[in-house]
């Protein structure tokens, strides 16, 4: 089989991404068709910048979803003849090409980038979401009550922010510390926030309709509780609550650590933003109206203040997914957290950097992927900010 030229590579890549193109086309067609009925999401399609950003983000999301269809080779399979081969080189058995070349162990760069997207797209938004839950749950009362609570929480947040992030990560992944179970204990605390958040959210509003409230609370407690226990616990580690037979979600220890550390360093920043907005919104008359009506504090925080803080928070959410993606890359780059085999973009860039002068492509391709995703998120955030201001 012949090696492919550049045009051949482009055509082959475009063809491999076919499921992604179809999904994107359908998504955009439907969204533009009904954009007037879709609220803020629909408004995205009024702005070119937001549309480009959204397209870039959704490209990687669909890539992650369909990655099994797109990959051309096994992400871990090594072909020794293909070490550091340039893009378009045909495999020796004639079954296909390494579209974007081979890395220093003879693995397919294209397939690894595609597979890596799955890890990035899974962890980054989820970690950001958890960071937001923690930040919101602490920022709202700090801003609303003020006083000593605010002083203490803000001091703690500053403490975490002042600590060098990379050093913190090194500490968290040190085997001695992992053995003490510290990251898992942190997960115990941090993962509790989303459940508590949901319960308070429902209770504060529906305590006036007890029958409905009890039903929803029970569902949250059972589903959330199960997810919580099986996420946090792992048989054979220090925190093992569920028996192995009932624990269907297996989170590898190192991913849990990465997850926890990302949430841990991101939540203080979210906390500060939420606290600031709360300080502003709590002076509004509708908050006073809630108070004079005898609403409880958590209702006012979650139903009167939080929805009106959504604009800046949504924008920050998008930006923060970008930061988290970079942070994951950085962690991978330093060899922290994920296993060295992992196809995530940070680790592959790190692996590729040693041979940058001989074969640049194993590092450049994931770097470009990372850049395009973060760029997309930033553009999306920009567009959202702009469109949310318009009416």
């Amino acid at each position, binding site marked *: 089989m012949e090696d492919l030229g550049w045009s051949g590579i482009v055509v082959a890549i475009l063809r491999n991404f076919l499921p992604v193109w179809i999904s994107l086309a359908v998504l955009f067609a439907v969204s533009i068709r009904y954009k007037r009925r879709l609220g803020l999401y629909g408004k995205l399609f009024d702005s070119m910048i937001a549309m480009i950003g959204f397209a870039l983000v959704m490209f990687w999301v669909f890539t992650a979803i369909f990655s099994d269809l797109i990959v051309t080779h096994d992400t871990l399979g090594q072909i020794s003849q293909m070490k550091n081969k340039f893009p378009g080189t045909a495999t020796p058995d004639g079954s296909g090409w390494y579209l974007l070349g081979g890395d220093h162990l003879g693995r397919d760069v294209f397939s690894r980038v595609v597979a890596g997207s799955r890890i990035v797209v899974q962890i980054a938004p989820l970690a950001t979401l958890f960071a937001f839950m923690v930040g919101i749950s602490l920022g709202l009362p700090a801003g609303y009550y003020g006083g000593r609570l605010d*002083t203490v929480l803000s001091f703690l947040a500053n403490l975490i922010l002042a600590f060098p992030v990379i050093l913190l990560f090194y500490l968290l992944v040190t085997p001695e510390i992992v053995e003490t179970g510290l990251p898992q204990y942190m997960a115990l605390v941090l993962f509790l926030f989303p459940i508590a958040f949901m319960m308070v959210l429902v209770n504060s509003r529906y305590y006036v309709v007890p029958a409905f409230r009890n039903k929803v609370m029970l569902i949250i407690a059972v589903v959330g509780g199960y997810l919580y226990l099986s996420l946090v616990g792992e048989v054979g580690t220090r925190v093992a609550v569920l028996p192995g037979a009932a624990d269907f979600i297996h989170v590898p220890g190192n991913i849990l650590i990465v997850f926890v550390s990302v949430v841990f360093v991101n939540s203080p920043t979210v906390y500060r933003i939420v606290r600031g907005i709360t300080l502003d919104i709590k002076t509004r*008359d*509708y908050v006073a109206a809630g108070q*004079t*009506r*005898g609403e409880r504090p958590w209702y006012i925080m979650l139903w009167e203040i939080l929805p*009106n803080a959504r604009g800046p928070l949504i924008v920050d959410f998008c930006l923060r997914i970008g930061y988290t993606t970079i942070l994951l890359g950085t962690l991978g780059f330093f060899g922290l957290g994920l296993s060295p085999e992992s196809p995530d973009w940070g680790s592959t860039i790190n692996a590729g950097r040693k041979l940058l002068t001989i074969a640049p492509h194993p590092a450049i391709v994931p770097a470009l992927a990372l850049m395009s995703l973060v760029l997309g998120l930033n553009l999306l955030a920009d567009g959202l900010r702009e469109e949310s201001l318009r009416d």
Partner: protein
Amino acid sequence: MTKWDYDGPILEIENLSISFFTRLREIPAVMDFSCVVQPGEAMGLVGESGCGKSTVALAVMRDLGKNGKIVNGTIKFKGRDLTTMSEQELRDIRGSEIAMIYQEPMASLNPAMKVGQQLMEVPMIHEGVPKADAYQRALEVVRDVRLPDPERILKSYPHQLSGGQQQRIVIAMALMSKPALLILDEPTTALDVTVEAAVVDLVKDLGKKYGTSMLFISHNLGLVLDVCNRLCVMYSGEAVETGSIKDVFDKMQHPYTQALFRSIPLPGADKNSRPLIAIPGNFPLPHERPNGCNFGPRCDYFQAGRCDAGDVPMFDVEGYDRHETRCLRVAEIDWNAPPQVAKKSEKMPIGDVVLRMEDLRKYYEVSANALFGGGDSKVVKANETLSFEAHEGETLAIVGESGCGKSTFAKVLMGLETATSGQILLYDNEIQSTPIENRSTETVSGVQMVFQNPFDTLNPSMTVGRQIIRALEIFGEGNSDAERRDRMLELLDLVKLPREFATRMPRQLSGGQKQRVGIARAFAGGAKIVVADEPVSALDVSVQAAVTDLLMEIQRKNRTTLLFISHDLSIVRYLSDRVMVMYLGHVVELGTTDQVFSPPYHPYTEALLSAVPIADTHVVKKRIVLEGDIPSAMNPPPGCPFQTRCRWKSRVPDNLCEREVPPMKTFPGGLQVKCHLSDEEFASMEPVIKVAAE
């Protein structure tokens, strides 16, 4: 250099049309606007928000932003057309020939620069005057705007001055280069009434002294009467009537002007026998203006086929000095016909006492350092010895300027704060030290509040219906969702809003409509006592009347006790049964409306009455201008709270006012006044407001 002589009119605006261009469409903001300002003349520009009056001012400054464009017409300043000038020429004129004063003084001053420097900058930039001369001139102007201790003022930063002082500095800055035209855009809206009166007085005198022409923009007809010689009434982007103050006020020739005057509470209006007449309908949005006359759909004299046929030009009114009106039927309408009085209503009997306050005090401790404690803590006495009763079905007005403690009092009553000492008795239950979370649902739903700012009173991300239903849920009204929904729709009927509004978001409602929803929400639990904190002060004049009427009507129906907090004495006189005047946390006067509005007065009430602008040329007011500002509640004066500004102080022997807080003095008839003045002095007081014979 930039100043030139010209002996024609200072400002001639001819057929000016201004549009704003948005992504969707062109929005005409001002159409076919003409006016002339002669040297030394003060022209008032009056209208409701959104009528385009500020846009005209900005067009004169050529500061319309990048969306705004002058699409037609000319603006001639001293004979030169401003619309064709280059940026360079405009820069020379702005600030030296035409100066502008905005609503918010703090926003016009640079907070990082000393006042003196900011003032000196003006002649230094425009005329290249050396620093020493500029300083002298600044000193002189600061003295002119009647600020005490000019040297110290020049050395201070803006935040070290009070709001009234800041506005005086802004005026001083505008006068630094002796401009030919001064544009004032609602210059006193952010100030308290007594401070406003002093600033308006100042503007008037300075206009005379410097011979400056003025374009005075305001929504307050009373102020315009005080300041201006001529006036132009605007409605929905058009001038509808121009003329001299006397002509327009007394012999108005446009239905809108007439309706406007009938909807503001002038002396003589009464909620029972002569109620206000609200203008029906809503202000049209700029892109939904009707054909022909813009006021047509809301006009009593509307004739289909004629008023909506085509654009209406300005007509000269015969026999008057430059009096013009934009009404086709001007000659046919009998302008002197008395208004068709809406339904009169019986005066409601006052019931039993529902709320009694006895010797209520509320002090706050403010510590110097919040983070680590320590430092000296100061005590702010927000409410001092508050005692009064409120009866069922009664309207008790609480009058006072900012910082007088009326909001604190409301907070204590609502249970958001607890009292320091004293008692609040609600139906004989003591509630002064029960915070709201410990109050029974019945107590909470029985005492509710209507807020001041319509744009802030509703949660912007919840539908109108949902917000009312929430109140019903909290108050335990209704047993099922369906029942509560029905109740919510009834409440919408009660405040006269269409039922479709239940699914609307607050941003789709106008200010008056939002305020109605706020009222519906307050009455969700069948409130017995409603605290209305300036409920109409942020609304346009024509909407004010309708919302006030609504409150009165619900009061009649439910026999609610209304505690009406306001600084606007005109509306207080119109709707309240009894009035309580507060100053720096003290109740200084308490009595029935007639008693408070006629002598004997507390000296503060007297000044307050004199300060309120009244839009009626027949009213003769005694001018009492208070010196200085309201003292800070952190650092109140010793003795009588009002002694620093009182003009009667010298009549009390032995400096008693500076040593002792006066006792509450009760007059026969029940009027209570907190003052040291002797009975003879009280008897010698003259009424502040006199209505001259027609």
